[in-house]
């Protein structure tokens, strides 16, 4: 690349900076920026790095709580205290745009980045989760994106030896051309070994370690801050190649280095590479930094300062090391065949100074660059589609004559059916802590040396948020919490990734705000503060913005590993009960049933009463702790019928049927149409099963918590039979349920 002589209007525009923003830059510097400085400002002030459109809205999230050790925003990831001197560090990040262009590397480098965010805080990464969304599989491009993203996650995560323990995958037209690839990493640290991402101590050294710097990924942060267009395909060089082996060495070396106590601060070079990592550390530490880029190891010849500062080559990190102790750090890296070099030092003048062989090539006040990035209150407008989709009544859709067929089709659908084909490509057992394998409501990771386990899940439903962003936001949090509760764990905190369209469109901005309001409300009531997260805007395809897609990563804590619960029915004769309500006909809105069977995307999203949700969750935890139940399973996509079918087949070693009977005597008020009864997606519902002897005790718990419940039937038999008014609505053998649920997906891919 050649350095342009003059900063022209066109150059400013091509860097994604507005006229006003450029004016601010000139005010800050008191002069025109040079090309390198323009590049530095453009990436730091990009949406991806500065959160300029979301910052104010995100303030709505509750971020404090008794178990929060480090609050959201203070460091690269929030930190949660789980007792025994241990802390959990977790974070989700999106890699939607890179994955749309080059799915395998896009997804792989997403894993690489999020894992570095965790171990640079001094935590050992113990689990990966991912939330993926694509257009329908019958389209070749979608199919390609999907299978390559899975391959990318598998290659990278497996090589690192971090188990991928849970995830979710949806297929919907809205993600055509703009897939959602959100990856989450969870780490465990000793509290006293936590490392901060900050520079401090005048004269301390800045160490660069990891891969050499190349031209790959140049300006990736600004790439992620605009819509994908046909030209994006031609922007392919912006996609980086991941090296999981190098990352594994970095991971082990860094964790070994912690024991030497010579490290002050550590940070990944993620988006905006050297620029953001160093300036953010300086900003957090209230100091200045000076580096000389001639010392940076380079992979390509003739790189100009602009390219070195903006490169997003993978598997690189910076460390602040105590002055005079550099050799100790370098030796640890050397043991792991890694080359660490001293590229600069911490200064006291609050300036981010970049030299090239001693000559100043950029000089910017740190605070102005990092903290005074522009902040926008985007114009908001309620989208017009919302008034058009509201009017829905069940009478508008035909009533099916054969419910067996409908249930089979739902179990067979890519969104509902088992994702075995996917998770078997991930090593989900390495580290020998995975107590619940993928497929359960939530994963469960034991913590060696304690009696504890952490429950982890990642969840979201763009369909609900499309119909009602506020309710959809609430549901995303509530359902994630419910998943964790179903295994017996207490929800502690969330991390999140918010995937939306172009925020300068007022409708998108409105959806974003409503969704965050809903999530914040749920977090407050369920007492699960937000520990951090990521916002991904500009998710658009030629038809417009994707459905608002909030994704929630939930952490739960189980105090005693011997008291966990699984979703599948276990014993013949056990009573099956639904905690919560049977739902209403309107709650078919946004359901998989009307989407798949009737090809509609209308109605109200399910409504959620968070107080009721909390009571249901409390009841479930209490009865699991008391050892009263044999199974608990969340009732979600596909409604009651799908959840019951899953209860019959979720364990390969314990397949058993159930007889469900909505008898008119017990459910005399039930006037709902059968399809609504079977497939509505009302919230706050958990299906449990238990020995008849425990009935009275369980009833006491539900009464104490003021939770309604319905006796549905009993476990047993070779099939799932659902009767209503002595008529069989559903009668399918367990083997057949299994065939539709487990084998359809592998057949369609």
């Amino acid at each position, binding site marked *: 690349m050649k350095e342009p002589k003059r900063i022209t209007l066109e150059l400013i525009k091509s860097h994604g900076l507005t006229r006003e923003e450029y004016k601010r830059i000139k005010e800050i510097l008191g002069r025109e920026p040079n090309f390198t400085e323009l590049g530095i400002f453009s990436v730091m002030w990009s949406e991806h790095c500065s959160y300029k459109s979301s910052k104010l809205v995100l303030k709505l999230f509750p971020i404090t709580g008794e178990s929060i050790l480090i609050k959201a925003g203070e460091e690269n990831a929030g930190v949660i205290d789980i007792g025994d001197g241990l802390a959990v560090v977790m974070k989700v990040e999106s890699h939607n745009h890179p994955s749309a262009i080059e799915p395998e590397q896009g997804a792989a480098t997403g894993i690489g980045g999020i894992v570095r965010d965790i171990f640079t805080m001094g935590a050992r990464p113990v689990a990966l989760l991912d939330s993926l969304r694509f257009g329908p599989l019958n389209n070749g491009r979608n199919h390609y994106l999907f299978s390559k993203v899975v391959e990318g996650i*598998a*290659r990278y995560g*497996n*090589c*690192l*030896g971090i188990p991928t323990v849970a995830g979710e995958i949806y297929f919907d037209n809205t993600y055509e051309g703009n897939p959602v690839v959100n990856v989450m990493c969870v780490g465990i640290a000793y509290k006293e070994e936590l490392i901060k991402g900050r520079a401090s101590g005048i004269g301390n050294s800045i160490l660069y370690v990891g891969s050499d710097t190349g031209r790959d990924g140049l300006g990736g942060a600004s790439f992620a801050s605009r819509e994908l267009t046909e030209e994006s395909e031609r922007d392919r060089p912006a996609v980086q190649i991941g*090296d*999981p*082996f*190098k990352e*594994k*060495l970095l991971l082990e070396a860094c964790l070994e280095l912690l024991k030497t106590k010579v490290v002050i601060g550590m940070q990944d070079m993620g988006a905006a590479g050297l620029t953001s990592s160093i300036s953010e550390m300086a900003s957090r530490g209230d100091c200045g930094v000076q580096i000389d880029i001639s010392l940076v190891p380079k992979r390509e010849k003739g790189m100009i300062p602009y390219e070195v500062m903006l490169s997003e080559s993978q598997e690189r990190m910076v460390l602040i090391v105590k002055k005079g102790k550099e050799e100790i750090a370098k030796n640890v890296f050397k*043991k*792991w*065949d890694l080359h660490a070099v001293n590229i600069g030092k911490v200064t006291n003048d609050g300036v981010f100074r970049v030299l090239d062989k001693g000559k100043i090539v950029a000089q910017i006040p740190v605070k102005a660059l990092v903290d005074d990035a522009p902040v926008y209150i985007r114009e908001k407008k309620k989208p017009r589609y919302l008034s058009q989709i509201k009017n829905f009544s069940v009478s508008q859709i035909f009533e099916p004559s054969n419910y067996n067929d409908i249930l089979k089709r739902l179990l067979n659908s890519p969104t509902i059916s088992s994702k075995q084909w996917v*998770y*078997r*490509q*991930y*090593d*989900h*057992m*390495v*580290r*020998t802590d*995975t*107590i619940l*394998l993928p497929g359960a409501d939530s994963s469960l990771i*034991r913590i*060696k040396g304690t009696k504890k386990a952490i429950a982890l899940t990642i969840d979201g439903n763009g369909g609900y948020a499309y119909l009602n962003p506020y309710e959809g936001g609430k549901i995303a949090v509530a359902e994630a919490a419910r998943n964790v509760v179903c295994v017996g764990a207490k929800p502690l905190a969330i991390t999140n990734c918010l995937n939306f369209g172009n925020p300068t469109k007022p409708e998108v901005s409105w959806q974003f705000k409503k969704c965050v309001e809903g999530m914040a409300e749920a977090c407050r009531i369920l007492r699960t503060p937000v520990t951090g997260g990521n916002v991904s805007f500009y998710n658009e395809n030629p038809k417009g913005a994707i459905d608002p897609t909030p994704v929630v990563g939930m952490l739960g804590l189980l105090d005693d*590993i011997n008291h966990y619960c699984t979703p599948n029915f276990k014993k013949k004769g056990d009573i099956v009960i639904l905690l919560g309500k049977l739902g209403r006909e309107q709650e078919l809105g946004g359901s998989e049933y009307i989407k798949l069977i009737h090809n509609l995307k209308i109605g109200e999203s399910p409504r959620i009463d968070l107080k009721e949700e909390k009571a249901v969750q409390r009841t479930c935890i209490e009865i699991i702790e008391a050892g009263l139940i044999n199974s608990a399973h969340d009732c979600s996509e596909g409604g009651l019928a799908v959840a019951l079918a899953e209860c019959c087949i979720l364990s390969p070693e314990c397949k058993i049927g159930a007889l469900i009977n909505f008898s008119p005597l017990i459910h005399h008020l039930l006037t709902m149409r059968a399809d609504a009864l079977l497939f509505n997606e009302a919230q706050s519902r958990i299906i449990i099963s238990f020995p008849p002897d425990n009935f009275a005790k369980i009833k006491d718990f539900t009464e104490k918590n003021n939770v309604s419940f319905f006796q549905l039937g009993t476990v047993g038999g070779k099939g799932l039979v659902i009767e209503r008014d002595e008529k069989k609505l559903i009668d399918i053998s367990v083997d057949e349920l299994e065939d539709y649920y487990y084998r359809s997906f592998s057949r369609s891919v």
Partner: protein
Amino acid sequence: MKFGVIVFPGSNCDYDCYWVVKRILRKKVDFIWHKERNLSGYDCLILPGGFSYGDYLRTGAIARFSPVMNAVEAYARNGGLIIGICNGFQVLLEAGLLPGAMVSNKSLQFICKFIYIRVENDATPYTNLFHKGQILKIPIAHNEGNYYADVKTIQALNKNNQIVFRYCDEKGTVSKASNPNGAKESIAAICNKEGNILGIMPHPERASERLLGSKDGRGIFESIIKWIESKEAN
């Protein structure tokens, strides 16, 4: 009695093996860095699973030239016990300490799941607590577990009773359907002619506690311990 777990750059089941030996079986165990050249004092070496050198070029191909491998070869010649699990098996094959090679799974995908294996030879240091025909539930997790050797080698393996485990179904039937990766003759584990070196694709360390869904794999470690103890007693 002391075990050693060899750590190559990119090993990732090293700690899992260490945990089983130290915390489940309560035996002494050290991590051995791949640059170590002295292996005296160990009664059994474990080459763990993982992605040594990123599996670049071929699985195990680069690790096989690690400094420690000269010592491992000498240790093997002296009849020392060596168990290579998954990537460790691949390293042993590349080093020529076991015959044959690994190629990509037939599905071309990484496969992680519980499968079943059948004991074919119960007279090795690794299987003496099992009986022939016994079925173990144990997980696999690999991309290249498709064992290959030419016809002559396979014949020799059969003749010398070197096939230690075969993939099977839960009833013990060995068939194409119960072969997860396409391995020749459903081979899941082999030993050398002398019987002191075992290469096994499934992960016994992941099936050594009830909490993890199976403790069938523990018998392999317990067999090793029994073998060493009986040798010590003599």
